[in-house]
């Protein structure tokens, strides 16, 4: 069962074009949606989670029309919103039980079992009786994960899930996701490249409502092999480098600037070959050196480097 998104567009009343003709095919497994803030990730996620309508286009989960049959979609959907709150005066156990019932798990014993398993899974078992109002950001996030995992979802949509997690939690969570990805479509949106590179079998890069690149992370990286070059330079040299080369990213390293550029052959000038990683893929796509922007022959845009 795969998720097919075809030509989806969304424009907000204030004129912002959140999505523009987005088409993606998402097979079972972990799928990463990578993009900067404001790229339209959350809009797409919410449309998939039945919480918003698309202006155009179609979305199908297997044979299921996601846009038209929201009720059916919700039965197989797990959703972790980017931002959410909880009832402060209710305990985690109670609220999760409530959600389990909303997910259709009517039988009390089954509900108790799954609530316990999920609370243990998300490491909230010891604090299950505590009121959610007293939870830290990470605990709340884990609680949200538990909610999203209820009801054995066939489509799991997690919007920026790792934002509030500490490194250990993040690892655990991503492991959990990939486990679920063995028999469900897991769509993970993030602006953290590592989330995708470590786990996702496929990914898409989205910016300003457009899909810039749809690829398998490993292959995308290997395709860049031999095309990424780096050089350490002083800050003063940077403007000239930016003029002459297709700069992918710049980073500060011990007071000097490390500049990475994209070039089919060695740009010389002190640049040395560099081993590409997914971050290079991301920035290269954003800068229009590969992917859709390049296909459109759009003028290369400078990417804000960090």
């Amino acid at each position, binding site marked *: 069962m795969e998720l097919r998104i075809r030509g989806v567009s969304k424009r907000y*009343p204030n004129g912002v074009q959140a999505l523009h003709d987005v088409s993606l095919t998402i097979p079972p497994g972990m799928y990463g949606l990578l993009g900067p803030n404001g790229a339209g990730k959350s809009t797409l996620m*919410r449309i998939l*989670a*039945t*919480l*918003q*309508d698309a202006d155009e286009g179609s979305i199908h989960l297997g044979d299921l029309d996601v846009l*038209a049959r929201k*009720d059916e979609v*919700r*039965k197989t*959907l797990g*959703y972790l*919103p980017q*931002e*959410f*709150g*909880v*009832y*402060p*005066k209710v305990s985690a156990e109670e609220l999760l039980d*409530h*959600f389990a*019932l*909303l*997910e*259709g*798990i*009517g039988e009390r014993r*089954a509900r108790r*079992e*799954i609530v316990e*398993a*999920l609370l*243990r*899974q998300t*490491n909230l078992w*010891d*604090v299950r009786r*505590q*009121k959610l*109002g*007293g*939870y*830290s950001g*990470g*605990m709340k996030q884990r609680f949200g994960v538990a*909610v*999203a*995992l209820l*009801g*054995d979802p066939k489509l799991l949509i997690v919007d920026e899930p790792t934002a509030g997690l*500490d490194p*250990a*939690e993040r*690892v*655990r969570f991503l*492991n*959990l996701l990939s*486990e679920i990805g063995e028999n469900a479509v897991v769509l993970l949106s993030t602006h953290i490249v590592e989330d995708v590179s470590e786990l996702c079998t496929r990914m898409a890069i989205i910016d300003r409502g457009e899909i810039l690149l749809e690829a398998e992370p490993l292959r995308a990286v290997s395709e860049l092999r031999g095309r990424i070059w780096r050089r350490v330079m002083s800050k003063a040299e940077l403007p000239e480098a930016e003029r002459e080369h297709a700069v992918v990213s710049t980073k500060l390293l011990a007071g000097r600037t490390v500049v990475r550029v994209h070039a089919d052959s060695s740009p010389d000038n002190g640049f040395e070959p560099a081993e590409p990683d997914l971050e290079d893929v991301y920035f290269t796509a954003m800068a229009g050196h590969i992917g859709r922007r390049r296909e459109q022959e759009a003028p290369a845009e400078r990417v804000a480097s960090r």
Partner: protein
Amino acid sequence: MRLAGILRFELAYQLRRAWPWLSMAVLVVFALVSTRVAIVPVTLPEDFVLNSPFIIASVTVFSCQIWLLVAPAVAGEAAARDVHTGMYPLVYASPVGKAEYLGGRFLAALLLHCLILLGVQLGSLLAVHGPGANPDVVGPFRPAAYLAAYGFIALPNALIATTMQFSAALLSGRPMAAYVGSFALFFLSYPVTVFLYISKLARPEIAMLSDPIGVFAIMNEMMSNWTIVEKNVRMFTLEGPMLINRLVWIGISLLVLAVVHLRFRFAHRTATDPVSRLLQRFRGTTPAPDVAAPARIAIAVPRVQGSFGMATRLRQTLAIARSSFRTIATSLPGLFLLAAYPAMLVLIMVIELQQWGVPLLPRTVEIVSRYLTFPITDPINYLVMVPLLVIFFSGELVWRERDVRLDESVDATPVPEWVLFLGKYLGLALVLVALMTMMTVAGVLTQTFRGYHDFEVDRYVTLLFGFQLPEYLLFAMLALAIQVVVDHKYLGQLVALVAYLLLIFADVLGIEHNLLVYSAGPAWSFTEMRGFGGSVGPWLWFKLYWAAWALLLAVAARLAWVRGRESGLATRLRAARHRVTRATMRTAAAAVALVLALGGFVFYNTNVLNAHVTDDELVRRRAEYERQYGTYEGKPQPANVHTELRVELYPARRAATMRGSYRLVNRHEVPIDSVHVEPAFYVDTRVTFDRAFRRVLADDVAGHHIYALDEPLQPGDSLTMGFDVRFERRGFGHGGLRSNGAGQAILENGTYLTGSALPVIGYQPLRELWGAEERREYGLPRQVTLPPPGDVDPGMAAGVPATFDAIVGTDDDQVAVAPGALRRTWIENGRRYFRYASDVPIGGMHVFFSADYAVHREQWKDVDVQLFLHPGHTKHVERLLRGVRASLEYYSAQFGPYPFPFLKLVEQPGNFFGMGVDGSGVITAGEGFFLLDPQGNGFDAIFEVVGHEMGHQWWAVQLKPAFAEGGGVISEGLAWYSAMRLVQHVKGREALRRFMSYMRQPNPWPQIRTGRPLLRAIDPWASYRKGPYAMYALSEYLGEDRVNGALRTLIRNKASSLATTVDLYRELEAVTPDSLRPLLHDLFAVNAFWTFDTERATAVRTETGAWRVTLEVEARKVVADSAGVENEVPIGERIEIGIFAPAKPGEVLGAPLHVQKHPIRSGRQTLTITVQERPDRAGIDPYNLLDWDEGDNIEPIEIEAPGDRADRERTS
């Protein structure tokens, strides 16, 4: 200057929002409508000026009450938006000072409120100067009146309310808490103040202080103390209690602001609520910390698929209901509703369950129908809090997920909208069920505290859960559906409130039919005597009809339910279209079918089987009556001298026929060629004569028939007119028993039918329109409502009494009652018949009762005294009889013989209080009267009230007051005076004093100092209170015999004509010596008020063993004119000084040692009197003959050792 910046930003922010403007719009409309239709109760049907300062101030006061409920969002937003949106860390960490931040926000909210309240004055102005205003009732434009109302009422209220709303929102961090602050003020201003005032728990001045908005404080002051003249011209300013009230509340507001400022911290807000903080402290444990998450391998999560059958849906609905209920029940307003509020009701009931100072039996029916139930469209007092809170809770529930940003998680779950909506609705319903349970508990507790143990829990359950709960449930559906459809927190509250106001004021706006006012219908009623009396059927049909509408509302709410991020109109319409499933269609179709079927059935009953006549239509008919037939006023008509009736009552099928005849005599000097007959409305009347006649006109709409006699009726000649009147219950009508009053109802047990169903002879001026406004509307000439007593033709004949002979038949297990002496009773065809007759002409209204009565019968001289009481209510037979016998004895001796050979006291079905006189020899007592439960101290009020009603057999029945000013003094005033003298005569002065202290209470008739003098009195205080006080004072100055003798003469002289206060005054003058003429004049002809105060009373023992008492007293006398200006005048009369021995247990005052009238002058003076026994208390006017305020007339005496006084005088 940061303050100004914050203020400016906040103002600009909110002024761009819709709610301030919509709140203002609501106020403009409310003020406009309430000015135009004069929602403000005008005490008397006299002309008023639409833009008088009084109306402007009243409208401002009432609008403030509405504003309080409509506009709290303004302050809530200003105070708590930062916390609510989560922006507060940015603000709190900025270098802005606490005072600047709070000050700027608070002032912005205050300014906004001031702006919104301008809408009231705008509305008032539009009502007067806008299109459609009637120029006849518009006075000159006085800007000061608007400024005064705005400045003295609106602005202080803005400060007070902004403070409370702002503080509540700020401290809780939730903008919606502002509504809670508002509710608190509303609750204080209306229910609490009225309660304090009426219950006398606090003195009136204190009670007035508890009103933060001035609804009661200001309105009470103006309504009761301003004369009609003042109401039209007097400028509203703050003075007296009003000023103190404003100052106190402004002070409280400033104090609250100071406290809030001190308490407020720019600090992180933890999510814990006060309750858990408290529990925390109590338990002493800290929550377990988040254990470091080891990166272990995942545990398998059981893979459970959801099931989505009906069973799951049901479980989900119930789970949402439970959780909704819990949120509300544990919130502060929820706790108020379910705990504090019932507790307060217990307090109210325990205190209020008394009448005339006598405790009332806390019977379950009384408790439930008087305190715990009400039709939602007719809110009484404290119960109005329930619908207001239902509106608030609806908003909270609809916004519950979104408020904590859990909506995305919930909306993505596979739960249909109807489950979410229904779950919340059921949650709200559970709250109401809990409320009903708490109400039951409150009732039972009240009964327990009163030592009453016949709880009748099943009756609580039936009435509260079966009748009141559906009322609330219908409203809850409306409120919830509105919140869903409006989908804006503040606007939802506003729209729901406006909708509620429309329900309440629908009739004022001209929408009268209950089929058009959501959830309205005829009220049910339950009394011990008549049970539901057939009120359940109509109630149920209407409620079922509205339940069908509620189902439609639920369908609408499901379609309009906002799910997900988008709430634009287009999206919602699209979603709604999408949600129209077959099930929805079926439900909607079923609902529409039910609405049509039930509505059609109800309409068939109310408008086809029964005539539905709107108030407007009634007014039109009365206008028509006067216009078409007014020319016949004064046309010679024969007078009825004998009534014959055969009344057949069929209680079981609720029908009756009245067949009978009038013997009509021509008492005029000219022949009469046509008889004008006015049939009663809503009944079939057929008329025949015992001589040839022709029906010239039969207008059954306006109500006038003319029958031409072929052979005119010669002077002195007589004829017989036969008539046939039929009542048949056909289905049910538009009004219920409660709203119709008890009359006109033939019920299974407890029929009370009045003679107003019988035709009357001649044009009836009393059927004409009274109201100046209505008369103007129909182009009728202005009419003086009440002529001055001097304008009444002294020879004007009294309504001629007639002899009477009636046979009344009813079911064989009931007793029928009619006026007259019981001649015979027999059984015929399984029915029981009673023949009542009077050879003495009787007047007043003919009444017919039929019920399962317990009858008590005894003889007083040649008077046949009968009591007809509900079998369960016979506890007071002996007490009632004591009053009846004593009255007959004393009044016959004083005012002339009791003229009828019969006297009957009948229990009238219906839960109302008190007694009344229906005509000659008939006294009725409502079922409520039999709740009186006198305790051991001997005072039962029954004697006093019976004495008053018996007095009416002389005053009103024998001496008939003319329809003129002062008429109330003749009937009510003299009847109370008689009762006072009777009490003193039979029970002594102490008993009278105790009763007088209940008469002096401001409820139901507060003192009006600026009314007209007694001779031209029109207000109830003058008739019911000042009249008897003046008569009593006069009888103490002149002597009882002289005054009563004058009254006896008056009755004799006016046996066949109507009496006015002029006649009364003439007779009193005749027995008043010259020395007391000024006092008589001051009591009756002007508005004089005496104020006496004993400042200090001391006594010293003389060498002879006597006691020399020294009194320092102050005396004052003023004469008030109709504009309320008081002029001090010198006291010319002698005033009583009393010295009393120590009181024995149960006495208020001890035995009088010295009571004499002394010459007293205005101002401060010292009196010295010697008595033989040891005195305890002393004072001036100790029996309140002239100073009608009980207060500081009597003081305890300080006993001084000989010589003390001299010492003190030397040193001072």
